[in-house]
């Protein structure tokens, strides 16, 4: 383990935390630990958690912090090898065939070799991630893996365990420097154990109040301290209310931004009711909070904040 190439990779967990923090990402210590491990052990990191807790953001921040290119594979149902790994440039290949015909070349093997060469290969994200240039392995983000189907998941097994793909006409492409792989999932379905086994796993939770307040301070600098405290306390309370969809960190930031834009200095029932759409995305939830419940939460947090001083 100790003799790994450690170019730019933090040497301790504290360094990892500092690095993330310097790029305005406030990670919990356990998240920093698994990130650190993923880098040191060169293993993919599988991040699960509710939507809007900052899973995708981690990959972006890592890429910026370690100065690596970010290659993103957004997954969707029906994603196949042609759009994820590679495709051949067919029109150009056809043209090549016609040209060699016209030139009277009849060497089949050579033609085949020419047609299926790098020149006509279109690299999609997976191949790009494996064939990085300049010796700097990229950060490879496989986003929302749960949206693909099982067939694609199975294909990824080879990529994630050996960092290689096989192209029948071309041979096996193996990464000289394994990319830093971050896989995210919103759990819209269960991902197969075989894939998870190849990864380190971490459940990304909502931040606690202290962390969330710090996030607002950094991401919405225009939001005044008292309002930030109220916003965070309110959102933290909302998450305990058993809503259909809890607001994520992204929503908290949106809300704080919206309130700042509206020049509000404190929460009041009317403002909450008008801006609830930035926070809650289901009509049922909005209706419920706009009713008595929202008012109740507000008076609760006001009492709590007064008690704290």
């Amino acid at each position, binding site marked *: *383990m100790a003799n790994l190439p450690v170019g730019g990779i933090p040497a301790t*967990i504290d360094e990892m935390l500092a690095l993330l923090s310097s790029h305005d990402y406030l990670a919990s*210590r*356990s*998240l920093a*630990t*698994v990130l*650190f*491990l993923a880098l*040191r*052990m060169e*293993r993919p990191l*599988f991040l*699960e958690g509710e939507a809007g807790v900052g899973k995708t953001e981690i990959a972006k921040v890592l890429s910026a912090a370690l100065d690596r290119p970010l290659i993103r594979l957004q997954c969707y*149902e*029906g*994603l*196949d090898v*042609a759009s994820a790994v590679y*495709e*051949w440039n*067919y029109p150009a*290949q*056809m043209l090549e*065939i016609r040209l*060699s*015909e016209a030139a009277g070349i*009849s060497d*089949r093997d050579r*033609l*085949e070799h020419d*047609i*299926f060469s790098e020149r006509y290969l279109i690299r999609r994200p997976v191949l790009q991630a494996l064939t990085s240039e300049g010796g700097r392995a990229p950060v490879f983000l496989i986003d929302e893996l*749960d949206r693909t*189907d*099982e*067939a694609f998941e199975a294909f990824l097994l080879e990529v994630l365990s050996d960092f290689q793909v096989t192209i029948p*006409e071309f041979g096996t492409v193996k990464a000289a420097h394994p990319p830093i792989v971050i896989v995210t999932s919103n*759990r*819209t*379905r*269960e991902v197969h*154990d075989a894939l*998870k*086994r190849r990864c*380190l*796993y*971490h*459940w990304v939770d909502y931040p*606690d109040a202290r962390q969330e307040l710090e996030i607002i301070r950094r991401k919405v600098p225009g939001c005044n301290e008292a309002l930030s405290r109220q916003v965070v306390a309110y959102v933290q309370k909302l998450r305990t209310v*058993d809503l*259909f969809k809890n607001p994520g960190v992204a929503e908290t930031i949106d809300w704080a931004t919206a309130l700042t834009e509206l020049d509000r200095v404190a929460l009041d029932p009317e403002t909450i009711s008008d801006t609830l759409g930035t926070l809650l995305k289901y009509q*049922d939830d909005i209706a419920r909070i706009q009713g008595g419940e929202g008012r109740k939460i507000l008076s609760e947090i006001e009492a709590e904040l007064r008690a704290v001083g």
Partner: protein
Amino acid sequence: MESEAGRRDGLVVPPVAVGDGRFADNIVFFARVLRKAGLKPGPGSVADAIAAVDAIGIGSREEFHAALSAVFVKRHEDQTVFDEAFRLFWRSRDLVGKMIAMMSPVAPDRSEKDKARAGAARVNDALFAERQREGREDEEPELEIDARFTVSGSEVLRGMDFAQMSVEELALARKEIGRLVLPFDEVPVRRYRASHRPQSVDPRATMRASMRTGGALILPRFRERRTMHPPLVILADISGSMSQYTRVFLHFLHAMTERRRRVHTFLFGTRLTNVTRQMRNRDPDEALEQCAGAVKDWSGGTRIGETLREFNRKWSRRVLGQGAVVLLITDGLEREDVDLLVHEIDRLHRSCRRLIWLNPLLRFEGFEARARGVRAMLPHVDELRPVHNLNALGDLVAALGDGRSGGGDPRRFLPEGHHGTRH
């Protein structure tokens, strides 16, 4: 916070220095405890765990916890069990001594143990099951552990015995199940397969084929959309009023699980249990036995609205994502709040491709939608079908096939003017 709690314990983990042979042993033993508690650490996990701890070095308990957790936990559901196992296992240098202390009624930290922690029962089982069997300790510890398994008496706790199904019955059911063919129950997906019909050209196959002739002949190859079964989600009522049908259903559901991918099964009475994993067991008897083990409220009451609510919150986004068909198996005799039921079944209806209600009460001639629950649910289902015998199962299969056959329209039971529409 976790870290503070860890530090209060006042010990630096790992208990034995990294590199010491005993440390590896401890990890192996810990993995074994996890496996017994129901987690599935793979064969490589132990090596990974040692490498992980090696990489972070000796640090705080929280870091150690995060490292082991990242290696051993692969599902969020397992986290509580892992945490509990971690708490128990890594809390002392003198592990064996502690284990004995935990078994002893005069141990100082007994009060802590009395709190019912999530996952505690399973971990406790994993750690101490053998000890109990050996019976080396005096009897008191056993009593103590027994007490922890006591659950509130409000729910009927009993394991159902599926072995009672007669051989004849079983044979019939299996035969019927063997005839299940789902001919048209497929939807196109975004993937392609090779085709002979000249619909869309497959450039990759075309190019590959042309290489066989050295590029002299470029004959087009075609492709078409692949089709697949949509996910099937089953919500089956196992409350007292339904108990006589449950066994047959479960066999049927097992056959479904075996035959197609993406079948998710949930059983509900007063609470919802996901038995999808148990149903995947090859052997039907084994599978049903495991289901019986997983479900805590066999033949209790029903709370349809409440359980649908739980399903909608916890599971609908995870299992209905790809255009699922939902089979709801219940008699619709709701004993609680009907408003809640209306609200939740409406949401369920709007989140799936098709909602089919299978109701054994339909076997009675002149069934009328009189019960409040039934009346509440009817406008929100796409089909209502009987499911009391093997014939009905056959009809169901046909219905899954093309959906229009056999008069499953639920509105035939509603009085004029109450015809619900899809929102």
